[in-house]
Structure formats: structure tokens, C-alpha cells
């Protein structure tokens, strides 16, 4: 019957999301620099009081009040199991509009500091590296070389899809 053939519409990866040749917000976690597509970002706010939620993994810091909306905040350094840094005046929360299973949700990501918005050409992006394990890291869109420095471009939706701590970065 007609009705049964209709599947719930799957969010199709739009060309905009998958093509990395786009504007990226560059932020730092420790000594490494990362990029998130500007399209996914709602706003950047300063660090504010975070209400801890009990019994959560350490990288989920808690919830904040974003003008009446209660949104979760995740420390990206802890999520990627990097060396955590003290929060400074440069520490900020990047509010990302992420696609969850039950519609869009807002998530705050704590970064050690944001630096700039870069337009990165497709040619400057290399595919996410294979470190020998065989599987490419799903939340790494690619790596961009800008002025001789490497920036890791994140698929932020993929990052938030898993709640657990993930490993990222270039092995030393």
C-alpha cells in the first residue's frame, strides 16, 4: 500500500555539509587547532556558570541557561581525551546546532579559544588520515594545511552523535 512504502525522511547529507570547501571557525584545544563549519554554529558565548548533572561522564560538564533554554555543555578536550587545560578568560562555549535523532538540538562545546574564520579551499584539504587501524575516523572530515599549519576539520554532528569519549588527533 502506498503508505507503507514511505520511509521516514532521512536527513540526507547536503552537499554543503559534506563538502569541506567552506568557511570554518578555527579554535584551539591545547596546542592543536580544529575547524568547525560556520554553518553549524549558532553563536559563541563566554564561559558561564555550568550546572553539573550528577553521574555523567567527565566530558559532559553539565547544563547552562542559554536565554531560557537549557542546553548541555561538553568539554571537547575531555571528549577527545586531550590534556585538559585550566579555563581561562579565552575559554569559550561554541553553541552548535546539531542534528540529533529527535530533531535539532543545541549543544555547547567548550574550547580553549577561538582564533579566526577561514575559507578553506577544497584543494587544501586532505582526506582524514588512516593511522593504520583501517577505519577512517568518522568525525574527522579532513585535514587542512593553512600557512604550513595543520587544522583538523571536524564533523561536529558526528562528534555529538556519540556520548562517549573519543580519540582524536595526530599521534606523536
Amino acid at each position, binding site marked *: *500500500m*502506498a*503508505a*507503507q512504502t*514511505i*520511509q*521516514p525522511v532521512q536527513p540526507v547529507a547536503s552537499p554543503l555539509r559534506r563538502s569541506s570547501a567552506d568557511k570554518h571557525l578555527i579554535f584551539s584545544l591545547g596546542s592543536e587547532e580544529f575547524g568547525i563549519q560556520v554553518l553549524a554554529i549558532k553563536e559563541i558565548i563566554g564561559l558561564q*556558570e555550568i*550546572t*553539573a*548533572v*550528577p*553521574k*555523567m561522564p567527565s566530558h*559532559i560538564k553539565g*547544563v*547552562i*541557561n542559554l*536565554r*531560557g*533554554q*537549557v*542546553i*548541555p555543555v561538553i568539554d571537547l578536550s575531555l571528549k577527545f581525551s586531550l590534556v585538559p587545560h585550566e579555563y581561562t578568560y579565552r575559554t569559550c562555549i561554541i553553541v552548535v546546532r546539531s542534528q*540529533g*535523532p*529527535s530533531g535539532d*538540538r543545541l*549543544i555547547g562545546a567548550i574550547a580553549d579559544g577561538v582564533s579566526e574564520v577561514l575559507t578553506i579551499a577544497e584543494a587544501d584539504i586532505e582526506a582524514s588520515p588512516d593511522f593504520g587501524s583501517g577505519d577512517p575516523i568518522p568525525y574527522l572530515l579532513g585535514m587542512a594545511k593553512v600557512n604550513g599549519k595543520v587544522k583538523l576539520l571536524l564533523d561536529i554532528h558526528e562528534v555529538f552523535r556519540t*556520548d562517549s569519549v573519543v580519540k582524536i588527533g595526530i599521534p606523536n
Partner: protein
Amino acid sequence: MESIADQAGGEESLNKAIDDLALQLMIKGAKALSPEVLEQVSRLAASLKRIDVVEKVQATVMRLATVPITDDDAKSIVCDLQSIIASPYDISAPTSTAQKSADPAPPMDFAEDSELLGDFILESEEHLASIEEKILLLEKDPSLIEEIHAVFRSFHSIKGLAGFLGLGGVQAVAHEVETLLDHARNLRISIDSDVVDLVLESSEYLKEEVAIVQAKLNNSPLPEVRDNTALLARVSTATADVAAGRPLSIGKAKQAASPAASLDQKETPIPAPALVQTLPPQEPPPSQSVKAPEVEHLPAKPAMVTTTAPPIAAVPLNVAPAQLELVQAPVPVVDRPPRVETASTSIRVETSKLDRLMDMVGEMVIAQSILSNLPRTTSSDEVRLATEMSQLARITSEVQRCAMSMRMMPIGPLFQKNAKMVRDLSRRNGKQVSLQLSGETTELDKTIAEELSDPLLHMIRNALDHGIEPPEERIAAGKSPVASLHIGAEHQAGQIVISISDDGRGLDPQRIRNKAIQNGLIEEATQLTDDEIFRLIFAPGFSTAEKITDISGRGVGMDVVRQHVESLRGRIEIQSELGKGTTFLILLPLTLAIIEGLVIVVGAHRYIIPLFSVREMFRPTQDMLFTVQGSEEMILKRGALLPLIRLHKRFAITPRTENVCDGLLVVCDFAGKLFCLFVDDLLGRQEVVIKSLDEAFKNVDGIVGSAILGDGRIGLILDVAGIFHTQHPTLELLRA
């Protein structure tokens, strides 16, 4: 290929002719349906070899010649024509009318028309609810001509919508009932209980059909489809009887269709109007899928596309009259409390938008309270500021009240739904029940009303099945044979109280006690007050009905009812006297969006405990504290031993104090179980707007949501049951 193109062009002009006709009908009324116009349509159809259309048109012409038709009839005829034309027709195999109309309409494109179908479902549900309500009124007083009109119009509107959407089964049944009611409103028959039965059964069928559409829309499994052939036959028999001036034979027909009765029907020449209007039974919708493959391989596929389009353009024609009628539907009835007008001047708004509004208003209220609590400077502006602030406070609370009222709906429709069931069940049980409703205009949150439907249904069933005795038993007990069942709703101290009371046999504490002992719920030696014994009926596993009927005892016990009500943050109370009757009181909050809570502190964290689960609070002394097996702690309070739970341990946070005597104990209650929660301190009592937490926190036991406190910071709302259930297993063992 040329012929196919011709065919497409011809169909287009046929469609155009019908649409013109519909337009003319809107303007001129039934007069527009003249034989000349119909002749023209018939010619067009004949040139297309659309025999089905030709037959329908000619039948109409015949009917025009015999009786004058009303505007409504004319509309429905054109409606039918549109749907016939819209349905694919295989010219290569001309069929008779009977076979043709048994062919289902083309399978709906559910994706494209989901919005239309959604509207159809909503409107149909409204109409069906109104039908049930009005027909029950009519049963009491068949002379209420306005009500007959209203029921007629509702069926008519459903028919129109269904016809347009190609829901053949719905359309056919609605059409037949409409015809029957048409006789009623022209005073050719009076509404007796047979007619009421028939109408109710039809509306039941329509409800199922609507449920099927809904299921298709949601891609959920389809419910059983009932065959409407028998129903259709009965309604049309009734119609034919009326038209022939005979007394209704449906009563007989219903009683297992005696051969004599059916013979009688066959022999009677059915007069022309009835013949024309009696559509042969349609196949239930699921068989529509059979049609799809055939359509696929037809070369004339482009033509198909064009033929389906025009009816969509004709939406306003079909729908507009229905809506107009809805507005006109007269509601006031002399001996009933004034009902809230829902149809006339309302618009539909998505609930998500209302929720968002509620949210923002809640924020506004909080922002306002922060503002008014700011430390004041001492200046000459102070007085002015204070005046303006209090003005703002007034406006804010008015806006809040307003926003809350938008989510509110009267409880009346919910009661009406049950009124019908009471009628059906009491008849089937051979019990005589007079049902009284009160407080139907009491408003409650829409979500609560929806969630309440099942528990209420179950409790009324229980009252009918177990509470109310059969007439003989009542007479023997010196009561009137007619039992009274009262369902009422009222506001009481910021709560809504729904009462279901019967004057039946009442709860027997001794029997309940025995049964509980049998089921292992309590020990033989346990001493319980009557109230405590009554509460046992809510215990899981109690409702192992001695006698399983189809009314209650379906395994859905009172514990499910209790769970439902508790999930709405309400509770149930029982008052019962043996031999006199039972009253169940359901106490519910006004809204789900706001709760009143106690703000408590543990270390640097603040939490909110919903006030409805707090029984008392006290500062303990050392002699109240006992330990069990050196680890679990109990508090002795007024002779009762309550388990002690330290919130800081449960949440692994650092408290200000570990010493129980330095902190506070909050006695929490969930499902009748009490325990003490140890916290550092109490900050106060506050109304908060509940905000759900992100999905990342969905597995956290003991937290149900969050709220923004007066100072803009977030407080987490505790889930008392969740905190208790993560309890150490040894304690559970001890309790058992």
C-alpha cells in the same frame, strides 16, 4: 498514441464541466443541477467511454424528474461525480455500475496529501465527537430538531471530505446515514433507539476508518478493518423503509436477520431516491494496493496525472460549505449548562508553538521576578519605579494566565465519550444506570485530558462492572433499580478534581484483604486501616479478576490506572462505604508545564523536589537514627521506620555536612512508599517552569528535568521514584 492524447484532453474538459457545475451549485444552489447541464456532462462522459460517469449522471437525471432535490443533495451528487471521475477507469473493460463503485478510489498518495489527510482526521474526529454527543441528547429528547440538523451536517461534512480524499468506505457509510438522517430531519421518522444505535454504530465504523488513515499516515501497523457491508445494508434498509412509509425494520434485521425479514425487504420495490443513493458496499481501503500495479503499466499514465489534479483544485468547493455549516451548528440546549464554543471562532495552532510560548512566558515571569527583587537604590525615582514594576508584575501574570489557558480544553468531550460507553455497557450488562455529568466546562491541560482518557474509561468500566449491582440485587437491597453514576470535575485549591461515584455495592474491605493475602500482597497478620486496604486495589497484581468479562478484568488493572495518573503528577483517592457506593477522586495539577517545588541544597548544588511528592520535612535527632547491618540507615519517625537515603551519596557529590543531625530530612512519597532524603538545607518553595533535559541526560536516574531558578541559574528537578529505585538492593530485600 493519438487516442490517448484525446482521452487526456477529453477528461480534462469533463473535469472542467464538473468543476463548473460545482461552482454554479455554490452560487445558485440546487437549481444549477438542471437536466440540460447534466445531459452535457453525460455526453462528454460518453465520448470518453466513461460509462460509470454516464450511469451516475443518468441516475441523477431520473431522480431529478421524480423528486425535487435539496442543495445538500445536489452538492453530494456533484461530490460523488468528482470522485468517480477522479478514480482511474479502465475503458478497455467497461464494468457495470455495481462493480465499478466496488472498485476503490485510487490509492492515496499519503506523502503528498499528508497535510490534507491530517486535516481530514482532525475534522472528522471533531465531527464524530459532536455526532455522539448530539445523538445521545436526541435519544433522550427526539424532538430536538436542531440537534438532528447538526448530526446530519456532521455526517455530510465527513462524507464530503472522504469523497474528496477517495476514502470510499467512509464516504459510503456517511452517505447512507446522511440519507437516513435526512428523513429524520424532514420528520418522516422519529429518532428512536434503533436509529440511535445505527448512527452510533456508523460513527464507530467511521472512527475506525479514521484510525486507519491515521495509522497509514504514521506508518504504524494498521488496525483491523471492519467490513462495512452489513452496516451499509442495514442503514440503507432503514432508509428504504422510511421512503416506503413502512415502520423501521432495522430492529428485526439486527436480531440475526430472520429469513422472513430479509425476504420482505427484497420483495419491496425500492423507490427511486433510495436506489440512486444506495451505493453498493465498497471494499475496505487496504485492498487499494491491489489497484496500484495495474495502474503502473498503463500507457496512459500522463493522463492519470492530469485527471487526479483537478479535484485537488476543487478543495475549497468541497470543504468550504462543510466549514460554514460547522460554524452555524447551534449548540445551546435548554437544560444543560452552557458549553464552551469550540468551533466558531477558533484557529488551530500547533501545540509545539504553544509550548514554546509557555516556555517564553515562564522565562518572562522569572525575569520579572528577578527584576523586582534587585536591590533598590534610594532615590526619588524609587516610587515611580516601584509603581511601574508592580504594573509589570500584573501584566506578566495576566499574560501567563492567558498563555496557560490556550493549552486548556474543557473536559466535556472526554465525558461525552464515556457517556456513550456507559450507555452501551449498561445495556449489555442488563444494568440500569442513570448517568449524571457535572462540571463539563472545567478546563484542563490538553495533554492531561488526552492522557486521562484511558484511566477514566477504565475506572468507569470498573464502576459499571463491579460497583453497580444488577436491578434485582438493588431492589433486594432496598435501593432504586436504576443505579446512579456521577462523573464530575471541578477546580479545588489549584487542582482539578475528577470524581467518579456510584451508589453501588461499595468496596468490601474484608474481601479485598482476603484477596490481597491470597495474592501474597500482604501478610495474614498485617494490620491495616480501611483506607490502606482500599489502596491495595492499586497494587500491581491485585486485579486478577475472579470473573473475566469483556468490560473489565482485561488484565489492565487499577495499578495501570494509578501509574497513569501518577505520571500526570496526580493521585487517586477512594471513599467507599459498603452497600452505599464508591467514589474515586482523581486529583490532577492544572498544567504539566509548571510545578511547585522545594529548592534544596546539597554542597554547592541546588535541586528541586516536586512538592507533590514531599510529605514532610524535619531536622532529625540522633536517637531517631538506626543502622541496619551496620550500613543501611533507617529513621524512626512516629513509630514508623523509614529508609534513609543520602542524596550526596546517590549523586556522588560533596555535601556540606555528613552528619544527619546537621542537615534536613525530606520525607518523600512515591506510590505510597515513604523514605527520607537527606539534604543539607532548604532554600524555599518555588513555582518553576519544567524544561526537559537534552537526550544526553536521558539515562540519568533521579533527574527528570531542569528549571531556571529565580536568579537565572539552573536547578535540576529530582525524580523521587528514580532516586529510590537506585537504592541498594539489600534494602529492597529487607522490605520484601
